[in-house]
């Protein structure tokens, strides 16, 4: 197996074309691959469809990608927050398309794509606006809604450590969407605080096996992890 470690974030992102669908890990700031997003802005791909739980916080990371007008559509569960002013402005101006998905359905649709599932019945959302027009079925006396997988061309995820074959471990609640997005995309790019030697990760604790990962780039310890930057910006 050749090493998947790339020398820079720019190298790792070079093949992303205009019009791509990109999953971006993270729940708010936790697990958001900020360095990869900054490089994506620099790289210039546009007309993107982005899949993320939120629609950007503050002015950096995903919010900056939106502000740069590179995103045609966002698929997410919770766009509106106290610090989602960039998305709010674009949405109200009709400059971005929104597909709103209940968070558990979002996660399961992503998981289903990675697992090769054609569709699934879920009780979440039955009888609500978000299930309008969707097929429903009663199974054992309970009502379910048919939901389809969400696939992506690329996934950008953030993890704590990788080995050269792309095995990943995460840190605390920054794991969130990383493992399922890594499996659901054709090409997965992981930024990690540090790359460790082959054999240094205990196989018993690997969370994302390297088979799901194509490119790894070391970014060093994220500076904003220690500077408390996001405190006070948090929202519901």
């Amino acid at each position: 197996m050749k090493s998947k470690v790339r020398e820079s974030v720019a190298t790792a992102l070079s093949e992303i074309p205009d019009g791509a669908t990109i999953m971006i890990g993270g729940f708010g700031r936790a697990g958001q691959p900020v360095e990869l997003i900054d490089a994506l802005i620099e790289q210039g791909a546009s007309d993107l469809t982005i899949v993320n739980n939120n629609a950007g916080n503050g002015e950096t990371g995903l919010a900056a990608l939106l502000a740069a007008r590179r995103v045609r559509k966002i698929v997410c569960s919770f766009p509106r927050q106290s610090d989602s002013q960039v998305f709010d402005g674009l949405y109200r101006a009709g400059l971005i398309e929104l597909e709103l998905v209940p968070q558990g359905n979002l996660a399961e649709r992503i998981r289903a794509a990675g697992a090769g599932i054609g569709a699934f019945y879920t009780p979440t959302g039955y009888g609500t606006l978000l299930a309008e027009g969707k097929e429903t079925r009663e199974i054992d006396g309970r009502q379910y809604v048919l939901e389809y997988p969400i696939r992506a061309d690329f996934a950008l995820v953030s993890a704590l450590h990788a080995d050269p074959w792309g095995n990943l471990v995460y840190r605390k609640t920054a794991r969130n969407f990383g493992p399922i997005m890594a499996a659901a995309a054709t090409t997965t790019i992981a930024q990690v605080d540090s790359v460790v030697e082959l054999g240094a990760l205990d196989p018993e604790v690997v969370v994302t096996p390297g088979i799901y990962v194509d490119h790894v780039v070391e970014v060093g310890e994220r500076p904003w992890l220690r500077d408390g930057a996001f405190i006070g910006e948090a929202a519901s």
Partner: protein
Amino acid sequence: MSMGRQELAAVVARDIPEGSYVNLGIGIPTLVGNYLPPGDAVILHTENGMLGMGPAPEPDQVDPDLINAGKQPVTERPGAAYFHHADSFAMMRGGHLDVCVLGAFQVSARGDLANWHTGAPDAIPAVGGAMDLAIGAKQVFVMMDLLTRDGTPKIVADCTYPLTGVGCVDRIYTDRAVFDITPDGLVVRETFGTTVDELRELLGLDLKEQR
């Protein structure tokens, strides 16, 4: 004398048995955490991938990789576990959580819940985990004021706000009374400074008294 929010949070906490796995929704339900028995008698779940969530950290111990569903910094209790989002919601949807406590705009007499969207045409909709939480836990508790600020009842025959879930609420804790939603209809479990007759008058709904 109606109940204040803190007092009501204590009432909800009293009804959560030791050994329960519990999800407290964003906002007022979070207050319930302050009144749970000390230690690890109850294990808290947060939708963003953790069981064994602890209280807010000291300011110098904040870790941006360790947050709750409201994206506020939290801590880790001994025995905590992390997992990815699909596992976290499978845990919820699969009926493994014992109790979840949610806020609400309206609850219907049949237990329909409306808590995600006012339906206002200029509102930017955001659902998060609300619909998954509503249908997931073994028992779904709602915690809210009985009336809106302008005095309109929030327990209604039919919700006028967009629904979060159908027939999913088991119990409603309000500042004036606690209601169980049963196959026989609304049952008043406990009152705070009011009577069941006064509640019937106020809500215009058929209410039974707990025997």
